[in-house]
């Protein structure tokens, strides 16, 4: 249970709302009429057994998938179709289940790539790397160094990320998402495959991001302990349907959730 009490979730305004979203691939229904919302400043967990549609849900939110039905409203703007780079421009950043970094590039360059949208020097200046382009590089480099310090990874700055251990790759990926200064941060299993110590570090970073930058976070996670500790509200999916939605305590006590996780005798 979270005792931070910093954000009055009930009073937080709705940042993202999803209404009756359905998504299917051929005959397979990945999501069936899902509705939920994410409020400003909260940490929202999405949980459910494997294949429940959690990642599909994130993919819909950041525009990788186009739902067949339903409306998504983000920052007051409704849309039914949006492309990923438009979602990014609108302030949605994300990380991936199986780490999607630019493997050949250094940790520094990976995080700098997250600044793409905030850099504006035009093609010509960049071609000669002079004037505004150079000034901009220096400014953004400064910001990126802050993120690197925040995530405690200065020692791996110049290392090609393909060579880093998994836990650090996940951290670099989080750094890249933070570099975008997003309004909404989507984390797809940020702690998958980590040991206890790494999980604790990552939990701390997530809480810090939420506390100090006020970033709204939606995360998918399998570790129930982590979910219950971190999140303000939990959405539970099973077979593409929403089976529960509420505070960690409410969800824990929900019979449908218990059945979905433990199985039920028919």
């Amino acid at each position: 249970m979270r005792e931070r009490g910093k954000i009055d979730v009930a009073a937080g305004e709705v940042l993202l709302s999803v209404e009756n979203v359905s998504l299917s691939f051929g005959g397979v229904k990945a999501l069936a009429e899902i509705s939920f919302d994410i409020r400003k400043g909260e940490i929202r967990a999405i949980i459910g057994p494997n294949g429940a549609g959690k990642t599909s849900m994130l993919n819909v939110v950041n525009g990788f998938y186009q739902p067949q039905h339903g409306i998504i409203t983000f920052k007051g703007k409704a849309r039914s179709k949006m492309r990923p780079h438009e979602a990014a421009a609108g302030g949605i950043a994300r990380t991936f289940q199986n780490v999607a970094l630019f493997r050949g590039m250094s940790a520094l360059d990976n995080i700098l790539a997250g600044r793409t949208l905030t850099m504006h020097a035009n093609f010509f200046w960049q071609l000669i790397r002079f004037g505004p382009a150079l000034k901009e590089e220096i400014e953004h480099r400064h910001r990126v160094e802050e993120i690197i310090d925040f995530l405690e990874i200065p020692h791996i700055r110049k290392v090609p990320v393909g060579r880093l251990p998994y836990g650090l790759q996940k951290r670099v990926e989080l750094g890249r998402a933070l570099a975008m200064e997003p309004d909404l941060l989507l984390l797809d299993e940020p702690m998958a495959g980590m040991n206890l110590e790494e999980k604790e570090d990552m939990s701390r970073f997530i809480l810090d991001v939420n506390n100090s930058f006020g970033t709204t976070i939606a995360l998918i996670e399998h570790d129930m302990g982590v979910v219950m500790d971190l999140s303000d509200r939990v959405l539970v999916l099973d077979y593409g349907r929403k089976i529960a939605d509420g505070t960690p305590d409410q969800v824990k006590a929900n019979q449908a959730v218990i059945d979905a996780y433990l199985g039920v005798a028919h």
Partner: protein
Amino acid sequence: MDLLYKIFLDPFVQMGGAPDLLVQTLWEGLVAGVLYSLIALGFVLIFKASGVFNFAQGIMVVFAALTLVGLYEHGVPAFLALAITIAVMFGLAIAVERLMLRPLVNQPDIILFMATFGLTYFLIGFGELVFGGDPKIMITEELFLPKGAIDLKMLGGFVSLQKIDIAAAIIASIMVAGLAVFFQRTRIGRALRAVADSHKAALSVGISLEQIWVVVWFAAGIVALATGIMWGARSNVSFALEIIALKALPVLILGGFTSIPGAIVGGVIIGVGEKMGEFYWGPLLGSGIESWLAYFIALVFLLFRPQGLFGEKIIERI
């Protein structure tokens, strides 16, 4: 013994005996190498940004050169023709992105590779339709490219340097240096590398694949135009030029598919190796080794350093 002498000693005796010829051969090799590098550069650009081997790079060289000369033949002033050709290459980049790459997004690389074959044959047909199949003469003088040769008196003989070759070497060097900095140290350059590494991650940080693809194909088009002008000045502008693109393959294997400096060094090694081989060792095998020596060198390289001299070593965690 006689054969060993001919292979291991005689060529070097010849080199020592006529150093001016040696320098001349080296120079010609260097120039050929620089031009190979230019073609290879076009490949590297597109490969870096999209992981696709662009089979159409050779025909793009021909197409760009033909457009330039064709426009001039129709009475367009030379520099206006150059500007229009650049615009045409930009249009081609947009068309390729819209009609070829966008519908094939997220398909396996081999599909995109096959699509570049399609593009090649389209450009051959379209080019012949518009400009005809006859060889044309490159408008070097009109573009103020130097003509003639400088004869240097050295080493007890003459070494003759074509001015156009010198110009080619200078232009290629500038292009390479510029592109290397652009790729390594700027936002768009970083975005290009990001797209090459992972499409979905690039999308998630707000990089527009469409925009990046247009940028690289346009850059490759400009490189193709420069190559077309330089090669065209040495021979003629004809569809036969297309096969020089195949010479870029050994260059790429040597230099690494992802490295711009590699394309240059690889080009020079292949160019010099070819000319030296042809001149000094060629007679042993009845000449004609220029046509296959490059591929032989590439094969040997593949055995020992498959990522090339400067290529990124592929790191795979298991």
